[in-house]
């Protein structure tokens, strides 16, 4: 069994809105898989289908080797789920919710729970109604991370966390990654997060998978941003294939270049003479934008 999640051709509509339109998603056991898409692209719907909360109109989904709808209760013993918008019971404390969810999942590592509470700087004695969005999310995260499960399903887990806590979250997920026995499905529209954490990723848009693979697989699709100060005027760059959005200001140039056109562009600049050079690696932001432009044609 090497695939923790295997979904093929998922279709789901709500009334006239088509939420999923033939979505594919494969997650290998033991990897951290980024599930990337703009808001409203169908990430949460996919996750709900994988959790057996919804049934797809068409398509096939397998989760940990079982049927997400029919075997829901049995499969849920082996996973923990953190929804994107966590709501807690107003009169239960955060600590009570963490313990309850852990016990329902079949056990909680109390040492790990206390450790996580400390790292996330969460006061477990507050009542559910007194927590901010970020703190409610931390409650669900601690409950999930302290549970002894094979699969973590995290739906935009950092959308309410401040940058400092986002950092803590990344450290914790990296530790999970090093342990190697846990699979994580991490949905996000925050690209740097997926870039920093994930082994492989799936990009979706309008309910369809547009790209899937490792980050390295996708770099050929992307461009590098170059800013340079040259010794003379940058002749010839504008006509080079693969160079985009060229801006010149005297001897200063800034442009984007396709990965396979990087070498000829550099050679052209060296001929003129380079005084300073800043190159930025392709971010998922750009990769994402290209997918966007690509599929909206």
């Amino acid at each position: 069994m090497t695939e923790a999640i295997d979904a093929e051709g998922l279709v789901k509509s709500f009334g006239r809105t088509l939420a999923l339109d033939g979505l594919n998603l494969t997650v290998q056991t033991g990897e951290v898989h980024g599930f990337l898409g703009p808001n409203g692209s169908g990430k949460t719907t996919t996750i709900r289908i994988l959790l057996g909360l919804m049934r797809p109109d068409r398509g096939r989904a397998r989760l940990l080797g079982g049927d997400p709808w029919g075997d829901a209760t049995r499969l849920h013993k082996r996973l923990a789920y953190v929804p994107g918008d966590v709501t807690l019971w107003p009169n239960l404390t955060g600590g009570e919710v963490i313990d309850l969810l852990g016990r329902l999942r079949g056990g909680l590592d109390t040492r790990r729970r206390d450790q996580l509470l400390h790292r996330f700087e969460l006061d477990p004695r507050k009542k559910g109604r007194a927590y901010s969005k970020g703190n409610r999310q931390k409650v669900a995260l601690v409950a999930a991370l302290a549970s002894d499960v094979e699969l973590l399903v995290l739906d935009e887990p950092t959308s309410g966390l401040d940058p400092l806590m986002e950092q803590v979250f990344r450290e914790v997920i990296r530790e999970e990654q090093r342990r190697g026995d846990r699979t994580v499905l991490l949905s996000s529209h925050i690209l740097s997060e997926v870039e920093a954490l994930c082994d492989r990723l799936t990009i979706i848009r309008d309910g369809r998978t547009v790209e899937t693979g490792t980050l390295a697989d996708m770099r050929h699709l992307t461009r590098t941003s170059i800013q340079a100060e040259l010794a003379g005027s940058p002749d010839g760059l504008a006509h080079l294939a693969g160079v985009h959005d060229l801006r010149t200001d005297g001897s200063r140039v800034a442009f984007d270049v396709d990965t396979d056109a990087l070498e000829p562009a550099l050679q052209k600049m060296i001929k003129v003479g380079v005084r300073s050079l800043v190159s930025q690696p392709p971010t998922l932001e750009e990769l994402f934008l290209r997918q966007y432009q690509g599929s909206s044609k």
Partner: protein
Amino acid sequence: MTGTGKLVRLILRRDRLLLPLWVILLGIVPAGYISSFVSLFPTDADRVEYARVSAGNAGFVALYGPLEGHSLGELVAWRAGFLPVMIGLCALLTVIRHTRTDEEQGRTELIGAAAVGRHAQLAAALITTCAAGLVLGVITATAMVAEGLPVDGSVWFGTQFVLSTWVFAAVASVAAQLTSSARSARSIAVGVLGAAYVLRLAGDISDLGSRALSWLSWLSPIGWVQHIFPYGGNAWWPAVLTLFFAAAATGLGVVLLGRRDFGDGLLPARLGPATAAPRLRSPLALAWRLHRGLLAGWIVAFAALGLVFGAVGNSVVDLARSSSGLDEIFARMGGGTVLVDTYFASIAGLIGVIAACYAVQATLRLRDEESTGRAEVLLGTPVSRLAWAGSHLTFSLLGPAVILAAEGLAAGLTYGSIAKDVPGRLPAILGGTMAQLPAVWMLAAVAVLLFGVLPRLAAVTWGALATCVLLMLVGTTLQFDQWVLDLSPFTHVPHLPGGHLGWTPLVVLTVVAVVVSAAGLAGFRRRDLPS
């Protein structure tokens, strides 16, 4: 106060269906009474006789309040005596919906960030609700005048309804400041309304007999508005008293609003335990945590109701003894015992529909848990859908049984010890109360069915319950066909004590409730979540 006008328009936009619905519906109900009184009691002599019997009927007085005169107007205004409670309920729910509910859900923050004054939201909610009450009163008064009743009495009749709206809108404005949760604010305001009704009831029933507790009516805003006695006394000073109270309560609400922080209540939010008790490890244990406060409140309220109903039961007998003319009629009807039985049987019916409110409330908790996303968290763990739904339904089924028993026991013990016949009276009164249970379950079953099959319409169950209440209050007066009355499960419950104990309707109601609930649960297992 800046921005109040805009917020008023926002409320009118959001409540464009709800607000006209209760304003118009409750406003025109009294008009329906006129024609039925005219057709049932065409001559003056008929009305005098009807008024004489009704004014001494403890069950009627409990439900509608005291009756002084016998003119058509007075009879109609008296028969509408339960409406101030329903109007008060609508008013307080509207105010809390547009103050604390918005604040809790963060909508206020959105508005508060715009150019809106600190008091604008409360002001807008009160202005809208009070204006709605005014419209309601005008509708009633106009309808009465159109039917040919005296103008001055009609104006006072409308004023009763206007003041009922205003006073409970004001109560809600205070309740909304006390706690940070809308649910608790609603409970507090509804609790005040319930207390006002029970005080009125206790005072009025006592007034029929020993008069020892008559003063209780004067502690209740509902008692005040009823002492206006439209078409009879047309007394102005209870109106002034009510107005003064409403103004004072509104003032208190405004002061409290100024003293608290945004999002907080005056009652502080305390810290709780950092870890869960060992028992908290199943859906049922969680449901117990979520339901126990509400259930405890209902048990206390129902026990108090039982105490009051039981204590005033003796007045019914006093009344029969003191009034010689009636004595003869009652003797023919079977004597004091029958009278007491009739009284307790009608109380049992009333208690039944109130208990149904709890049953529906407890069942709709399912929908509430689903739409807030809390169900999703639980159903993402190895908890099956049936186990989760069952944990809440335990309270919809057993909860009503417990609160009905609390009322029946309290009433039976109180009246039994006054009548010095606990072994005889307790089982009769308790039995009559518990006989309501299958009808109460039926309402819970309707809620389960809607939740399972048409979850977005689950709240329509309240409409079904309101229909049952209306059928009980006006069904016989308006001479509906029997099949219409039969729509309410409460029509089928045997009238106990005193009536014939037929097991068939109880068994049939229970079986139908089980089948309907099962259909709802089957639907729930098959549908998407959340929906």
